[in-house]
C-alpha cells in the first residue's frame, strides 16, 4: 500500500466554488428556518399600561367605534396604538360614547364632530378625504367650481404654515383658493348674515306667538350638535330653529340664485366648502340637503358637493407648492362674498348668539342696538355654559344661554326638559349650541396646533375673530349687509318667505329609535 497522505489533494477552482456555494446555501436555509424553539406569537409590543396583572385593568383603554361608512371620519388601523384618547374626547368632552345602553340597536352612534381627530396622537383618525374629488373637479373644464370659506378657517389656516395660533389670514386664504383654480370664491360669512335674518325672524315670531313653536329656540348651525339632539333629545327637536346652517344656505343659493344670475346650468356647478368641521361632510350628504336640485326637478343634485376641512385645504396648498405665507391678500368675489362682523364671530362660541341679538333688537325695535349690545361680554369666552339677560324695549328681558362642547349642552337640555316636565315657563328664550369646545374655532377639522387641543390655542383664534369684528370689518350688523339686502330684494322678498322656506329652511330626523339613551349625569 502506498502512503496517500503525503500527496496533497488538488482542488479545482470549480470544486472550490461548489463547496463554498453549497455552504452558503446551507447557511441561508438554516438562517431562514431558524433554530428558535419558541412558541408562535408574542413577538410584538403593547403599550405599557396594558402590561399589568389581569385583575388590575387599566382605566383609559381601547378606542371609539367608527362605522366604515362614516362620511366624516376614518381610521388607519396601522397607526392606532389603543391609547384611548379618542374615547376621552368622545365620552368625556362630547358625552356620546358610553351614553347609550348595550346592546346597541342598529347604528354606530357618532355625531361626526371629529374631536377624536384632534385628540389622536398618531393621526390614525382623520377626516374622510374629499381633496381628490375637488382636484378632479378643478381639472374639469366643463365644471364651474365654486368655493365658500367658513368664518373660523381664516384664523387657523396660517397655523399649518408655521404662523402663530390665531393669525388672521383671510386675504391669503382667498388668494390661495384662486391660485388653486376655483372659479368663484365666496364667503360663508354672507350666509351667516342670511342665517341671522332667517333665524332672528323666526325667534321674533316665536316670541310674539306668531309662530306656533315653543320657546326656547335652539340654534341649528352646528351639524354635530343637530345630530346629537336628534339622537339624545329628539323630544326637543321642536325647539330647533328650522333655519339651515350657513354652509347649506350657501349651497342652495349657489345652485339657484347665483346660477340664475350668472346663467349657469346648476348641474355644471361643483360646490365646495372650506370648513373647520368634519360634521359638515356628513351634513352636506343628508338626503334633504338637495333643495336647489329639487326646485328644478333634479333631486339627485346635492346643494354642496364636497367639504374640505382647514387641514385638507392646507394639504392641497402644500401639494401644489404654493408658499402660503408669501401670498398677498385678495378679495372675495361679489354677489355672495360680503360679510359683516356679526357673521365672522359665528366662528366662536357665543358669536351666533351675539349676532342674532344685534339683529333681533333691530327687527323688534326697528332701531340699531346700543353699543353695549355690540360687546356682549357675558356670552364671550371659553366657559362651557354662559348665560345672559338682555333688555329689549317692547319685549322685556330676553334670557339667553350659550354652550359649547356637548357635555355642556346636556346640562342646559336637561334644564329645558325639567322645565317642560314641571310645566314651568321656559328658563330661556334662545340658546346657542356648538358641538365643539370653544365653537367652530376649535372644530374637528381645524389644524392640530396643540395635542390634545388646548384652550390657549382656542383663545388665540377666538380673540382674532372678535378683533376682526371690532376693528377690521366695516359693518357689524347682519341686516346692513348690502348683498343680503340685494338677495331679499331680487330673490327671496323677505325672511321666511315661501321661497326662503324652500331653500333656506330644513327639517330634522328623530334618531332616538337607533339607540337606547343612557343619562349618566
Amino acid at each position, binding site marked *: 500500500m502506498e502512503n496517500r497522505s503525503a500527496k496533497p489533494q488538488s482542488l479545482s477552482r470549480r470544486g472550490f466554488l461548489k463547496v463554498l456555494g453549497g455552504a452558503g446555501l446551507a447557511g441561508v436555509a438554516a438562517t431562514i428556518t431558524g433554530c428558535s424553539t419558541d412558541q408562535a406569537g408574542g413577538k410584538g*409590543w403593547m403599550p405599557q399600561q396594558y402590561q399589568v396583572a389581569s385583575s388590575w385593568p387599566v382605566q383609559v383603554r381601547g378606542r371609539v367605534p367608527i362605522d366604515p361608512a362614516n362620511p366624516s371620519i376614518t381610521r388607519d388601523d396601522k397607526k392606532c396604538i389603543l391609547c384611548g384618547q379618542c374615547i376621552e374626547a368622545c365620552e368625556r368632552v362630547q358625552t356620546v360614547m358610553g351614553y347609550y345602553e348595550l346592546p346597541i340597536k342598529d347604528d354606530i352612534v357618532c355625531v361626526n364632530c371629529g374631536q377624536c381627530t384632534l385628540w389622536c396622537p398618531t393621526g390614525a383618525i382623520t377626516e374622510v378625504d374629499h381633496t381628490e374629488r375637488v382636484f378632479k373637479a378643478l381639472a374639469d373644464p366643463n365644471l364651474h367650481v365654486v368655493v365658500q370659506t367658513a368664518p373660523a378657517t381664516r384664523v387657523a389656516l396660517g397655523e399649518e404654515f408655521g404662523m402663530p395660533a390665531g393669525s388672521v389670514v383671510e386675504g391669503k386664504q382667498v388668494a390661495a383658493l384662486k391660485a388653486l383654480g376655483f372659479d368663484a370664491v365666496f364667503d360663508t360669512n354672507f350666509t351667516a348674515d342670511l342665517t341671522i335674518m332667517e333665524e332672528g325672524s323666526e325667534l321674533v315670531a316665536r316670541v310674539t306667538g306668531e309662530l306656533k313653536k315653543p320657546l326656547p329656540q335652539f340654534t341649528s348651525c352646528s351639524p354635530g350638535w343637530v345630530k346629537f339632539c336628534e339622537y339624545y333629545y329628539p323630544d326637543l327637536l321642536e325647539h330647533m330653529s328650522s333655519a339651515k346652517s350657513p354652509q347649506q344656505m350657501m349651497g342652495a343659493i349657489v345652485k339657484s340664485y347665483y346660477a340664475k344670475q350668472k346663467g349657469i346650468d346648476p348641474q355644471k356647478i361643483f360646490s365646495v366648502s372650506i370648513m373647520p368641521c368634519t360634521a359638515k361632510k356628513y351634513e352636506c350628504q343628508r338626503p334633504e340637503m338637495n333643495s336647489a336640485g329639487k326646485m328644478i326637478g333634479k333631486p339627485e343634485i346635492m346643494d354642496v358637493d364636497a367639504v374640505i376641512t382647514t387641514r385638507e385645504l392646507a394639504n392641497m396648498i402644500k401639494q401644489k407648492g404654493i408658499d402660503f405665507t408669501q401670498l398677498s391678500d385678495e378679495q372675495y368675489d361679489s354677489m355672495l362674498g360680503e360679510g359683516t362682523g356679526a357673521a365672522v364671530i359665528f366662528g366662536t362660541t357665543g358669536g351666533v348668539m351675539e349676532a342674532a341679538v344685534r339683529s333681533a333688537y333691530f327687527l323688534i325695535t326697528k332701531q340699531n342696538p346700543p353699543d353695549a349690545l355690540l360687546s356682549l361680554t357675558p356670552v364671550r369666552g371659553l366657559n362651557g355654559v354662559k348665560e345672559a339677560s338682555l333688555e329689549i324695549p317692547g319685549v322685556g328681558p330676553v334670557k339667553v344661554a350659550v354652550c359649547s362642547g356637548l357635555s355642556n349642552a346636556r346640562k342646559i337640555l336637561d334644564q329645558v326638559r325639567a322645565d317642560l316636565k314641571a310645566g314651568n315657563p321656559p328658563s330661556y328664550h334662545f340658546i346657542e349650541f356648538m358641538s365643539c369646545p370653544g365653537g367652530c374655532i376649535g372644530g374637528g377639522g381645524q389644524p392640530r396646533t396643540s395635542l390634545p387641543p388646548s384652550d390657549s390655542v382656542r383663545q388665540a383664534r377666538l380673540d382674532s375673530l372678535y378683533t376682526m369684528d371690532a376693528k377690521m370689518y366695516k359693518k357689524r350688523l347682519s341686516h346692513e349687509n348690502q348683498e343680503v339686502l340685494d338677495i331679499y330684494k331680487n330673490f327671496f322678498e323677505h325672511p321666511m318667505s315661501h321661497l326662503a322656506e324652500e331653500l333656506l329652511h330644513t327639517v330634522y330626523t328623530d334618531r332616538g329609535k337607533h339607540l337606547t339613551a343612557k343619562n349618566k349625569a
Partner: protein
Amino acid sequence: MAKGVLVDLTKCIGCGSCTVACKLWNDMKFQDNEPTMGPVEIAKLSANNWTVVQYYEIAKDDGKVWRFAKKQCLHCQDPACASACFAKALQKTEAGPVIYYPHLCVGCRYCMIACPFNIPKYEWDKTFPLVSKCQMCSTKVEKGEAPACVSVCPAGVFQYGEREELLKNAKSIIAQNSSYVQEVYGEKQAGGTSWLYISDVPFEQLGFRTDIGTIPLSTYSHNFLKYTPVVAVSWGIILTGLYHYTKRRNTIAKEDKNVKL
C-alpha cells in the same frame, strides 16, 4: 387550573380594539386585502388575522339589529388539532391555551383538517410556510396578565379568569336575563372550550357552528388510533423475526450446498 375568557356579545360595540391589540402583541402585518373587521364575507381569520370582528345585521323584535362577533381560536379543552399532530407542534398547556411550536411542525396540515371550528390557517404566501393561529397570548397568561385583546376592550365585553368560575358567571347572567339565548357557547361544544360566549341572538346567526357534538373529536380517532404503538411494535417484532428466520434458512441452505461428500 385552566384559564378562560367569557365573551358577552351583547356588549360589543364593534370598535375593533381587540383586533389591533392582537396585531400589536403578535407583530402581525395589516393586509389591505385581509380586513380584520367587516361583514363575514370580507373579515375572515387567516394566517395574518388571528382574530377578526364580524358585523352581522340580524332580524330581531320586528326590526333589525347590528351585532358584532369576535372570532379567534376557542382553545378547546381537548383539542382535535393537537391530537392530530404527530409532531407535537400543537400542545394544550396547563394554563389553558393551545399553543404552536414552529420548530416542531412538519407542515402536514392535519390540524387544519381536524379542527371542527376551521381555525388553523396556513401561510400560503410564504416560502417556508407554517401553520398559524391565535395563541391566547400564552406568554402573557403565564405572567398573570390577560390576553392582549381582552385587556384593551373598552366596552366590558370580556371577563378573564378560571374557566369554571366564568362558566358559573355566564350561567347566572343568562339565568337572570331572559333576553339572552339560554346557552353558553363553548361549555360543551367539542368537549368544551376555554373561550365561552353568551349572546342575545342565536349563535348560528353569528356564524358559530352549532352542529358540533359534545364529544371531543379526539375521542373518535382515539378508539382505533390507540392501537398504533401496539401495531407498530408488533410489526417490528414480527418482521425482525421473519428476517432472522429467512436468514437462518438461507445460511442452512448454503451450508447444505457446500457440503462436500
